[in-house]
């Protein structure tokens, strides 16, 4: 007995510290796990080595935000532009509004910019219910995985993202709104111990038409004799699309796929003549990506391979009846069918090494092969003027059917935690293409955490945008002519940020930026050949506040001032064209209770100067206010949302280039939207 008591005491003494060490180890593991989740969901956005804003579905749904485009208009420094195809694109910090690919859109990490325009307009209508979170990096920012973000990048995270303990509900959604808008869709996750499968699906259509005009013929684009044929009327801006997304994860393997069948009205016309109601443009997008991620000791290996298809598929009446081209008169107008299908193959391999204390070194490459795989070009008879389509695919194609480009990008990056307060990220990208190369592009950023309330960032980075297919390979066209001699557009950015955290969830962030843009690619209605014709220096300030007035509300507000100079070949400097100098956005959500809330968004966009030689008055300032009422039934787990957008019926116009639609591109006025969501 005596001995057993002593043995018991001895065991207690040796077991207590062991138990304690187990607990410490468990706490440490938990903290690492939460670090990982926080980094992945950008909870620790203020500590990231770039300027980032994160929009969460929870707030966006309460605000009645309908789709990705509406969400992006809330971001500091982001304005929206469009063109005659209604190819809408977010403009980051006054970037070139005619160069779509200056920002990249990623869906669950897959770049979805189409090759033809390098744009992603077809994804801007993605319903907000399919989106868990949107991470927007302004500036060249993150260049991981060989993806060049020039002015900004948008990472859309769907509900495929799933952490243990943070599982999302499955969801069913229906919407109805102005312009006979109808939408239905769902998100669904299947989980087993080692297998997770995620599916989302949506179908949506509307009958949107907006009064526009007079069209481009009024500016004498096709000769003074045809000015009289110019029309004003309803531009077909309707939408008809469906999408099916699939993400599968099994152990270290992942598979991502999406089919987007996007069809829209021909908007303002390929040749800037108002098209018919039924004329359409298809911008389908399909992608698959296979991934393998494995941690081996201090190495994290990530290998991806993907295949993407996209197309430009237009069928419309291009020019009106009675068009007189001198040698021929098109009594029944000019019709056209243009089709160009592109394929992108890519493979990337990256290794992250964490074996050196406080360092995370990432090295890898991404190789891409881009190719046009099919092209047809049909037009009314150019000789006789007969409206019946003639196949000009081989004789006068609108596009180079052999267009192709290979790109390989290498990157080396080190994230170094100098001490508790200072982190450093530095690295270099090197890219070669089968046309003009961007070469070496360095990057360095410092994040200094004085304490948990005061954070400072300094960032220097260089990046580029390769010319789009449209800018390189279009031909035999009055509106745009490509050139394979184009240099990539280049940007060097200098950014400084200060973040003041007030509490866990309220902060004020201020950013100062200076961007030097070279080789900017432009064309015009009078000179349709794309050229590296401009340089721009842009500087500005962004202020962003998130917090509360009362305990039960949420306030978000941001203000951006930007200015700069635009210079062309001859060296003279002009005001930045088509850029608002003041942007102010914000939202307010008032939670009456856990079930009822009222939300409002406000957007102010100041006037825009015109391009050199454009004598039109400035594009007008506008302010829009949206409001939304949200009811959540916790018992049956459904939500009803009614929202009124642009409640003061403000006339919003996006700028048109000179000699096109002289009164710019009118946008939707006051509209309503009803949404029913059911969670399971």
């Amino acid at each position, binding site marked *: 007995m005596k001995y057993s008591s002593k043995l018991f005491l001895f065991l207690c003494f040796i077991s207590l*510290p062991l*138990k*304690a*060490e187990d*607990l*410490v180890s*468990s*706490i*440490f593991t*938990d*903290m*690492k796990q*939460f*670090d990982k*989740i*926080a980094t992945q*969901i950008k*909870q*620790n956005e*203020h*500590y990231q080595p770039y300027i980032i804003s994160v929009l969460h579905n929870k707030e966006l749904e309460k605000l009645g935000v309908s789709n990705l485009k509406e969400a992006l208009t809330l971001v500091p420094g982001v304005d929206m532009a469009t063109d005659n195809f209604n190819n809408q694109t977010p403009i980051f910090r006054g970037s070139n509004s005619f160069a779509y690919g200056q920002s990249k859109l990623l869906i669950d990490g897959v770049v979805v910019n189409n090759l033809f325009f390098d744009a992603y307009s077809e994804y801007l209508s993605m319903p907000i219910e399919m989106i868990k979170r949107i991470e927007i990096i302004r500036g060249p920012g993150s260049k991981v995985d060989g993806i060049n973000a020039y002015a900004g990048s948008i990472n859309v995270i769907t509900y495929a993202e799933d952490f243990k*303990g*943070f599982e999302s509900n499955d969801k069913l959604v229906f919407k109805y709104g102005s312009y006979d808008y109808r939408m239905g869709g769902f998100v669904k996750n299947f989980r087993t111990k080692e297998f997770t499968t995620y599916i989302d699906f949506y179908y949506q259509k509307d009958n949107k038409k907006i009064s526009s005009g007079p069209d481009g013929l009024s500016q004498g684009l096709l000769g003074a004799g045809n000015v009289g044929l110019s029309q004003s009327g309803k531009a077909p801006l309707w939408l008809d699309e469906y999408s099916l997304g699939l993400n599968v994860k099994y152990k270290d393997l992942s598979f991502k796929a999406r089919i987007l069948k996007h069809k829209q009205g021909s908007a303002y016309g390929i040749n800037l003549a108002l098209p018919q109601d039924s004329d359409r443009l298809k911008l389908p997008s399909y992608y698959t990506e296979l991934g393998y991620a494995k941690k081996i000791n201090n190495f994290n290996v990530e290998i991806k391979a993907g295949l993407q298809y996209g197309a430009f598929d237009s069928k419309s009446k291009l020019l009106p009846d009675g068009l007189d081209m001198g040698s021929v008169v098109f009594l029944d107008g000019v019709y056209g069918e243009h089709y160009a299908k592109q394929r992108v193959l890519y493979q990337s391999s990256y290794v992250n090494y964490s074996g050196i204390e406080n360092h995370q070194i990432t090295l890898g490459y991404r190789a891409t092969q881009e190719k046009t795989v099919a092209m047809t070009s049909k037009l009314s008879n150019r000789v006789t003027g007969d409206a019946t389509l003639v196949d000009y695919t081989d004789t006068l194609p609108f596009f180079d059917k052999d267009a192709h480009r290979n790109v390989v990008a290498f990157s080396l990056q080190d994230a170094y935690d100098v001490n508790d307060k200072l*982190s450093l990220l530095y690295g270099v990208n090197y890219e070669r293409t089968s046309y003009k190369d961007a070469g070496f592009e360095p990057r360095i950023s410092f*994040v200094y*955490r004085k*304490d*948990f309330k005061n954070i400072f960032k300094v960032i220097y980075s260089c990046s580029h945008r390769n010319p789009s297919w449209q800018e390189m390979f279009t031909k035999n066209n009055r509106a745009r002519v490509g050139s394979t001699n184009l240099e990539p557009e280049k940007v060097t950015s200098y950014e400084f940020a200060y973040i003041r955290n007030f*509490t*866990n*969830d309220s902060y004020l962030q201020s950013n100062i930026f200076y961007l030097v843009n070279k080789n900017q690619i432009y064309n015009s209605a009078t000179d349709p050949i794309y050229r590296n014709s401009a340089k721009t220096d842009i500087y500005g300030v962004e202020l962003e506040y998130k917090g*509360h007035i*009362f*305990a*039960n509300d*949420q306030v978000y507000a941001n203000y951006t001032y930007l200015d700069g100079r635009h210079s062309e070949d001859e060296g003279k400097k002009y005001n930045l064209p088509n850029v608002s100098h003041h942007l102010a956005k914000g939202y307010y959500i008032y*939670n*009456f*209770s*856990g079930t009822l809330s009222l939300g409002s968004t406000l957007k102010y966009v100041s006037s825009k100067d015109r391009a050199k030689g454009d004598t039109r008055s400035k594009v007008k300032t506008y302010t829009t206010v949206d409001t939304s009422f949200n009811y959540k039934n916790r018992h049956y787990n459904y939500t009803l949302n009614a929202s009124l957008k642009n409640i003061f019926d403000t006339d919003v116009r996006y700028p048109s280039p000179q000699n096109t639609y002289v009164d710019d591109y009118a946008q939707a006025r006051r509209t309503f939207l009803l949404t029913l969501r059911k969670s399971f």
Partner: protein
Amino acid sequence: MLRVFLFSILFIQLLFGYNYDNLVLKAQSSIFPKIMLLDKKVQNKLIDNKIIYTIAYDTSDYQTALHVEEYINSIFKGHFDRYPYKINLVDFSHLSPNTEASALYVLQSSTDNIKKAADIAFQKGIVSFSYDVNNLKDGLVLSLIIEKSTILYFNIKYLHVKNIDFIDSLFPMVKFIDKNSL
């Protein structure tokens, strides 16, 4: 008019809850009970051989307190290590030195309520955890926030307090903070 406005603000604060970050709540629910077990004197704080983990909440935050209870139960399933536990939800208005508690987790509330909770925890010689790191300045012991990484903040005032005596292995994991830096 000013009175009406101020009353409205007060009334609204009473009716509706504070804002909470879900990830922070989950991290705290997962980590705080484990830290409590690193108290060398945890045995002395058992009540009927159980740990009573008391959550002090503002009336408006009852739902949040319930969520925290759910999180903890889903993680620990009835036992903090070898100790059975009971979650005790207590409205600040009912919190007193007589409230049973082996540890106190304090959600957001007015400064007076936070100070009251800190005083009670100190008198009882138990560890107090705070949702909001700013409340350490009012006398609570530990908090957790998510900065670049997950950080545990320890109120330096409690480093040498008789009844709260953590094992040494905890201290390399925390950042010490005093009320002047909050």
